[in-house]
């Protein structure tokens, strides 16, 4: 019996034969045709420059960060780009923590070559002080789940993260113009990187029979295939890199066919990436508008409590929905602790507690959002603290689909925010159902 069985996943001969035989009739094990990609989903994190890509079962996360460092001596006017790959042990039982394996290094090199040598990222714009300080961009790729074809997924994740990354604006100051002042994001908006084109990696798998070729192999197919090739192509038809490390010899006609396919797929994937980035950018712009409108409210002279509350209220629909969800939990929590606490110090705090245990359990079933709002509104006046009162008050306003913002910089901005507020509030109003559905789907997707 083998030691460390859980570390090694061995494919049976039956599985191998099944995959190869099915491919002879142009069928793949997961039902795709040989030249189909799996379902691609691109999501972004809270920060600028972090993306999560799911390509079928493969799950990859990329984080882009920037630092001011000294440039290389040979290139004093250019910023630097570095790719770090982490094959996390959670992705595959055979990945060990510690030194990167050769496949990790290979993946990092493919992504790096696609970006650097094709000059996709404009490094000259990253120079701040020639010869002294430049922006060093660092891309960390974390592989979370190995479902096959890590290269393509990692490449897409890296591109998505680069497109949404924003670096702080910096200007030269001081008497001799040698001092660099980095402006924090609240003072001046961070600026995006200049990306000239998107090099998309497309991976092909070759099998022992010469004519069989598949795109986007799963990890079952990767264990069977005898040769692989990754072509990095952009939507304009430029070949950025071709990577075919040994393996089965392939006829040049097959290779030309691959390149044409790669060009088509690159166009598709570029469109998908750009759409996802568009959506993220509009959401980000919305968040910025809301932040600005709330800061204007502060100047106009609402009490700090109210405006602070307002900012949190408008600061993204998810926070709003979090308020709705957490309000009951906080009330109940306060009730229990007020029962247990005897301390004088907490009297100031206990004023805001709703006396007595609340009999309302928010988790018993999918909460009807109208019921939620109504009960929240009814709880509002009972409390002592004005902040809580104002919070519930604004919650009572939520039922009307449009939210009225009292002060705003421009009318146009207000209208845009209002319309989008209507949309985002609707999303915010059904948060619990969405979350429960997500959990259920993760159950059923098992």
């Amino acid at each position: 019996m083998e030691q460390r069985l859980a570390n090694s996943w061995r494919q049976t001969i039956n599985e191998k034969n099944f995959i190869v035989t099915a491919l002879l009739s142009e069928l793949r094990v997961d039902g795709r045709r040989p030249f189909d990609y799996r379902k691609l989903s691109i999501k972004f994190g809270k920060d600028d420059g972090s993306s999560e890509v799911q390509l079928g079962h493969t799950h990859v996360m990329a984080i882009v960060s920037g630092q001011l460092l000294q440039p290389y001596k040979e290139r004093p006017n250019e910023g630097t780009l570095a790719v770090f790959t982490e094959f996390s042990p959670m992705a595959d039982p055979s990945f060990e923590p510690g030194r990167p394996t050769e496949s990790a290094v290979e993946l990092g090199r493919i992504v790096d070559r696609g970006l650097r040598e094709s000059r996709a990222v404009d490094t000259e714009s990253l120079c701040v002080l020639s010869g002294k300080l430049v922006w060093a961009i660092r891309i960390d790729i974390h592989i979370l789940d190995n479902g096959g074809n890590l290269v393509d997924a990692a490449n897409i994740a890296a591109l998505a993260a680069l497109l949404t990354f924003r670096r702080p604006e910096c200007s030269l100051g001081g008497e001799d113009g040698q001092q660099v002042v980095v402006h924090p994001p609240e003072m001046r908006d961070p600026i995006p990187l200049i990306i000239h084109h998107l090099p998309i990696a497309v991976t092909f798998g070759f099998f022992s029979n010469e004519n069989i070729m598949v795109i986007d192999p799963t990890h079952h197919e990767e264990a069977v295939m005898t040769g692989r090739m990754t072509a990095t192509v952009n939507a304009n038809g430029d070949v950025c890199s071709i990577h075919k490390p040994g393996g089965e010899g392939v006829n040049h006609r097959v290779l030309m066919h691959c390149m044409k396919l790669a060009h088509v797929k690159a166009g598709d994937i570029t469109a998908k990436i750009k759409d996802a980035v568009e959506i993220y950018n509009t959401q980000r712009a919305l968040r910025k508008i809301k932040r600005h409108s709330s800061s204007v409210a502060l100047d106009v002279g609402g009490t700090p409590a109210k405006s602070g509350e307002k900012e949190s209220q408008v600061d993204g629909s998810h926070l709003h929905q979090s308020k709705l969800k957490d309000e009951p939990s906080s009330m109940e929590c306060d009730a229990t602790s007020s029962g247990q606490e005897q301390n004088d110090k907490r009297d100031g705090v206990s004023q805001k507690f709703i006396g007595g245990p609340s009999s309302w359990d928010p988790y018993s079933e999918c909460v009807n959002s109208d019921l939620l709002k109504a009960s929240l509104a009814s709880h509002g006046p009972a409390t002592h603290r004005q902040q809580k009162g104002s919070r519930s008050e604004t919650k009572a306003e939520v039922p009307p689909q449009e939210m009225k913002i009292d002060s705003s910089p421009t009318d146009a901005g207000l209208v845009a925010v209002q319309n989008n507020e209507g949309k985002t509030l609707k999303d915010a109003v059904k948060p619990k159902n969405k979350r429960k559905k997500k959990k259920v789907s993760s159950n059923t997707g098992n």
Partner: protein
Amino acid sequence: MEIERPDGRSPNQLRPLACSRSVLHRAHGSATWAQGDTKVVAAIYGPKSGTRKNENPEKASIEVVWKPKIGQIGKAEREYEMILKRTLESICIRSIYPNTTTSVIVQVIHDDGALLPCAINAACAAFVDAGIPLRHLAVAICCSVADDGYIFLDPNKQEEEKMKAFSYLVFPNLNVSVLPERSSQEGGEPTAHGIITSVTHGAMSVDDYLHCLERGRAVSARLSEFLRKNLEPKSSSESSRAG
């Protein structure tokens, strides 16, 4: 006196919790846990045969790998690994699988304060997802003490930096009956298993610490409820994973 938190929460209010299980396909068990903006993914592989050299072969051992968001593993990450390992060892039934190693891999997706409690909660949910038998579940909470002695629960990163001290507390999941009809707060006295883990940063007085403990225990009831709610629907349709 104004007890004002930057995001408008009350001192006893937790950030919104989100937990989902079976997020990864290769891992035997996986879960994500998010508290506000702090998000952590935990994955479990195991039990695998064999233990490492300085581990007791008569018991199951747990190996934790902590992956930070950016950069290499440093001293802080090693400390988190050690704390997580000891915490999980106390909730697992270690005598069931002697001479085996269970690997827990934690990946930080975003850090906005209270990272270690988030990771502990995620690891616990991942254990349940993997079907590994546990003595009881654990819920973790972060309590911070401000300069004037006020206690705030679940601080985010800004608050953590401003506070005089904060502590991570891990409590066992209360032994509340899991009957379908919900009696509101009738939990009764927790069958006091005590505190599993407590890590403090900064200087706080003994009284402050005891207040933190009381608040933490009160909130752990809320967290336990949330955790159980999340874990219940899955348990009936769970199938074993052979990997």
